């Protein structure tokens, strides 16, 4: 333990702490714009400068190791004045369109300017002209609002292992851009949106699909159906001032009905359906020696990554569509007919914690008879905007139940919202399929939690199954390299693109802390602990869908509607 004097009071620090980390732990907040915990400190923004006695200049606390006896002044006049000037300089060529900016309520730059008392423009820099990059179906880049903190570059490279963007040019002409300054759509971007989550300004945001949804809602001829993903209901409350992890499924359903959606369904129903298909596929592959290890296919960023960077593993991907696409497909191909509505009149919306789902919805493979399975995808943030736009408040709405038959879900389907959830749900059902009975303890502790890599070995009825759960594509890449190098003890791998799974998706509420993430995770586990229906095969509505329409898992109808294929993809990488 080290003892430092910070602002004339002693604090304790651990060996290896930076000054910033030591102060944060002691509850002393030093503002930052470029700092990302656990990633390489770059000291790029200089917001975190502090005075350290014995040091000549101001020191960036994010990159300076704490040492015993150090005397630090975090908010001295000199340090605060330096921060203020930095913000003023950043604002000198920043667009003055805060009123219209997508981040106007949660912009870190605006907050700092306010905190530091910047109330006028002192420096006038010439504004650089940049083109807006709207080429991607998921992410919009506006380099004019970029302050070059580099967080997006680091998350993309160090966490996801993609590196589709980097600093281009030099000095005052520097921008964050793709190779050859092309659109994100032809780059190796996997649309995960983790860059949006770390962006302090409005330089990165999701493609806005609200206008299309509003148009559909306004058209009396259109039958508008919405489904919501498992991770959304345990996050959306945060947008309305509720504690992280509050489950607002009921109030959200109630809000969606008032907004005018004709039906409100749960994507978790389709997660149960996915498990029926995927667990059957796994059992079949193990029995017939099919391409193993089988890898999950729910996470669209991961799928694009395999297609562009590891096409040799395409046969290993489960052929199951994602739950979003399965539900869209069943709604148009079966439910619409049952309700006597022409499928062309049905507009399917999905509320997702994810920006890559927007890309997925536009995949030409995911549709039938000229209709897309999913017509529009809203992120959790867009959904909150829609609810606010209609003057609704989740805190006071009476909870309502989702519509049948796609409103019934097991808690296994709900677990899809966290890393390890698909695995846990699949293990429960695979056990049942192989032995005819349920596991004694349905909880599979080894695949729970926020760790990036989790492994477990299962013995089911004489069958030995090695399972791995990874989240964050950097971890996925390392595992793929092990498999390619000859690792043979794995039969089933779950991959989630975002670290921790969908609860930490790129479409979620901005400003997520590790505590909020844990609360969302625990909320999903609490649902699984407290409810009775805990297995996909125990979902009556799923069983009925098989009886009335699909036949059995992996049947011809299932293959037609619930499965898909992938192909190698050429991108600039």
């Amino acid at each position, binding site marked *: 333990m080290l003892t430092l004097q910070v602002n004339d009071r002693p604090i304790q620090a651990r060996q290896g702490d930076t000054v910033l980390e030591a102060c944060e732990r002691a509850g002393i907040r030093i503002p930052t714009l470029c700092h990302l915990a656990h990633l390489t400190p770059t000291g790029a923004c200089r917001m975190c400068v502090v005075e350290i006695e014995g040091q000549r200049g101001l020191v960036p606390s994010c990159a300076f190791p704490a040492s015993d006896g150090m005397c630090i002044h975090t908010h001295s006049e000199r340090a605060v004045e330096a921060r203020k000037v930095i913000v003023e300089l950043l604002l000198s060529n920043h667009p003055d369109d805060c009123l219209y900016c997508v981040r106007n309520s949660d912009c870190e730059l605006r907050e700092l300017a306010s905190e530091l008392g910047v109330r006028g423009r002192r420096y006038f820099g010439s504004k650089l002209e940049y083109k807006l990059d709207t080429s991607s179906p998921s992410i919009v880049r506006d380099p004019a609002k970029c302050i070059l903190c580099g967080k997006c570059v680091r998350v993309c490279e160090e966490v996801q292992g993609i590196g589709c963007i*980097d600093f281009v040019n030099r000095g005052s002409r520097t921008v964050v*851009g793709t190779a*050859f300054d092309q659109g994100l759509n032809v780059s190796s971007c996997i649309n995960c949106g983790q860059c949006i989550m770390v962006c302090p300004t409005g330089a990165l945001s999701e493609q806005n699909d609200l206008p299309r949804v509003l148009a559909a809602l306004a058209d009396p001829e259109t039958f508008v159906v919405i489904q919501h993903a498992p991770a959304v209901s345990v996050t959306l409350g945060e947008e309305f001032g509720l504690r992280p992890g509050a489950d607002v499924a009921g109030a959200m359903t109630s809000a969606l009905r008032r907004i005018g959606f004709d039906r409100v369904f749960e994507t978790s129903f389709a997660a149960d359906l996915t498990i029926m298909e995927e667990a059957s596929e796994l059992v079949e592959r193990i029995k017939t020696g099919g391409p193993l290890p089988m890898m999950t296919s729910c996470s669209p960023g991961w799928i694009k990554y395999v297609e562009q960077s590891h096409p040799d593993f395409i046969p290993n991907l489960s052929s199951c569509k994602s739950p979003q696409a399965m539900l869209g497909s069943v709604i148009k191909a079966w439910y619409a007919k049952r309700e006597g509505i022409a499928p062309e009149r049905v507009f399917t919306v999905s509320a997702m914690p994810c920006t890559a789902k927007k890309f997925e919805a536009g995949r030409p493979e995911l549709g039938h008879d000229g209709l897309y399975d999913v017509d529009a995808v809203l992120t959790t943030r867009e959904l909150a905007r829609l609810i606010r736009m209609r003057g609704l408040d989740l805190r006071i709405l009476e909870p309502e139940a989702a519509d049948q038959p796609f409103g019934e879900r097991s808690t296994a389907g709900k677990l899809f919202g966290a890393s390890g959830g698909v695995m846990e749900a699949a293990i429960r059902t695979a056990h049942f399929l192989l032995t005819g009975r349920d596991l004694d303890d349905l909880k599979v502790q080894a695949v729970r939690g926020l760790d990036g890599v989790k492994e477990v070995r299962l013995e089911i009825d004489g069958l030995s199954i090695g399972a791995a759960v990874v989240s964050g594509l950097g971890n996925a890449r390392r595992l793929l390299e092990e498999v390619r190098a000859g690792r043979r003890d794995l039969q089933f791998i779950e991959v989630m693109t975002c670290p921790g799974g969908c609860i930490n998706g790129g479409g979620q509420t901005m400003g997520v802390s590790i505590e909020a993430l844990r609360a969302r995770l625990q909320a999903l586990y609490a649902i699984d602990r407290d409810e009775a229906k805990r297995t996909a095969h125990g979902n009556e509505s799923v069983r009925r869908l098989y009886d009335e329409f699909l036949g059995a898992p992996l049947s011809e109808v299932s293959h037609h509607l619930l499965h898909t294929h992938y192909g190698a993809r050429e991108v600039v*990488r």
Partner: protein
Amino acid sequence: MSTVPAETGARIDALLAPWKGARRDSLIPILQDVQEACGFLPKEAIVKIGRHLDLPASKIYGVATFYNQFRFQPPGRYQVMVCRGTACHVKGSAAVLEAICHDLKIRPGQTTRDGLFSIEVVACIGACGLAPVISINGEFFAGVTPDGVAAILDGFRRKEVASA
């Protein structure tokens, strides 16, 4: 210095062959090798260098755009070098550069569509007595004025027509 032949891919592979096992710290010498051989950095080369070093293409592009020495278009048959050193600046080289860009309809680092001219900005040619000075394929033009630019460039256009 040649323009890009059709078989760029094979050519880049051949250039990369001696760099087998190279790591990221060899990036700049590799970029220099390619530019030396091709006269510029073709897109294909940037992607291939990325694969070779296991780095994303965006990073190769980022490094290459950081340095003035790298160009991304084949140089023109006539390379117009505009001196932007201190003496030339004082004598009005900014306006000269602007006039050249306007006449050729390209920016520094670019090449005209017909492949005839490219513009490069240099920090100092070392001929301050002649300021503002430009050099085209080694031929120096002293005391250039914005109005005089068109005549100089036309001279090269005529030369090209005559030799055709």
